[in-house]
């Protein structure tokens, strides 16, 4: 695999610029910020539990909107390059397909990080205004949500290297559903027998376990993850994302345009 740092950087910056100049991103981000701010309303109708309600509502809104952004923008990018033939402009130049693919991925991750930062700042400001406290667990939870979105970006990119934008979005959404049901799937597998048990266990190990990135309960009770948990989640993210990126690259390397 031949990678060129400066080419990857150029493609990543161009991808980032492309997404941040997309009106769809601003619409989604605006709506997300409004929804997070609206958690104040949800908090005000609860009986003495407003901080908890705001925390739960806010982090869920942040997760949902970040995943929507990941799915809608992430699955479109490579497909749109092929559809609009802008891929001719880049792939005919002195660069490897690996550099192009990784550049696209990093550019998307950068966009997601910026969106999460905007939403996270609004979320923290809302919490601070309502509770007068600065919530460190919220920062941890937001960081884990970013890792989840980055993993799903790799998944979306993998799908978009061999299928249409719509199909990629649907498949990635399917992965989100399965990934957040990992614990249920594991429990089901342990209660099943025969082939069904093997199938469920295979699904559990093959699909990403997105529940590992879920710290919603922890922030409600103001718990912070310990170092071991953080390292395990980061290691899981790196291993799974690398595997998905390599699979995507193997397909993209053979794609014809």
């Amino acid at each position, binding site marked *: 695999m*031949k990678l*060129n740092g*400066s*080419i990857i950087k*150029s493609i990543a910056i*161009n991808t980032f*610029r*492309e997404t941040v*100049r*997309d009106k769809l991103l601003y619409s989604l981000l605006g709506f997300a910020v409004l929804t997070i701010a609206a958690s104040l309303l949800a908090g005000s109708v609860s009986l003495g539990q407003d901080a908890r309600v705001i925390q739960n509502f806010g982090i869920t809104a942040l997760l949902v909107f970040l995943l929507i952004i990941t799915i809608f923008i992430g699955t479109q990018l490579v497909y749109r390059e092929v559809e*609009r*033939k*802008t*891929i*001719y*402009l*880049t*792939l*005919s*130049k*002195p*660069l*490897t397909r690996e550099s192009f693919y990784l550049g696209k991925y990093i550019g998307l991750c950068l966009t997601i990080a910026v969106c999460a930062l905007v939403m996270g700042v609004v979320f923290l400001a809302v919490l601070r205004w309502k509770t007068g406290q600065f919530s460190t667990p919220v920062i941890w939870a937001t960081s884990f949500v970013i890792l989840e979105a980055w993993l799903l970006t790799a998944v979306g990119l993998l799908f978009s290297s061999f299928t249409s934008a719509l199909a990629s979005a649907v498949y990635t959404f399917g992965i989100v559903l399965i990934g957040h049901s990992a614990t249920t799937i594991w429990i089901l597998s342990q209660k099943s027998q025969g082939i069904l048990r093997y199938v469920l266990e295979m699904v559990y190990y093959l699909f990403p376990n997105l529940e590992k990135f879920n710290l919603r309960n922890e922030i409600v009770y103001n718990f912070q993850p310990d170092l071991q948990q953080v390292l395990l989640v980061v290691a899981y993210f790196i291993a799974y994302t690398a595997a998905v990126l390599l699979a995507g690259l193997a397909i993209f390397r*053979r794609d*014809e*345009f």
Partner: protein
Amino acid sequence: MLKIDKLVKAYQFRRETVPVLHNISLEVPRGKIFGFLGANGAGKTTTIKVIVDLLFADSGTIMIDNLPHSSIKAKRLIGFMPEQPQFYHHLSAREVLLFVGELFELDPKTVETKAKNLLRQVGLADAENTVVRRFSKGMHQRLAFAVALMNDPKLLIMDEPLDGLDPLGRLDFKRLFLEQKKLGTTIFLSSHILSDVEEICDEVAIINKGQIVKQGTPQKLRGTYPTLEEYFVSTVQKQ
């Protein structure tokens, strides 16, 4: 400069294999303008896409300045202008050229000046900060030519470069091609505007149904025919 040897390519449509190029061999001499002629569907664009590594050959070799065509070193020598060029809609003409400069890893200090000069050369100086999505078809063609020249290529590969241009634009482009030739650039272009090809090309090859059927200077091929176009039509119809 460009040597294609026994190039074979077929497309797969579901379970069906459709052969497109059958053992194509040709050689483009250094410093010449080479016209690649053929009717629609003859295999011109497929050949060009294989040369620039957007499609993969089933067999055969392509060498650019004695380097394998898909190597990074060979790609540094190429300037490519695709048929109906498209650019990132969010970029301005200047930004497109700067981005291409980055992909060629050109010196950042000179790339800005180079982009400005090229935009002036192709008649887009006034539109340098206009986003590409507002460009007309002719402006797209002009920008694509500037992109192809960004790395001072030794080999310019252009797929229907005169398509979509008005008569003044075509005149401009032909002048620019001849200027590039004077600088020593080899030009490989496909076209179906045969009067233009006859005017500027030193050598041509005719491709029909995926096979090279004739190759030589336009004057030699035309022979007793009044124009290259009439010779082309007669040759293709005979096949």
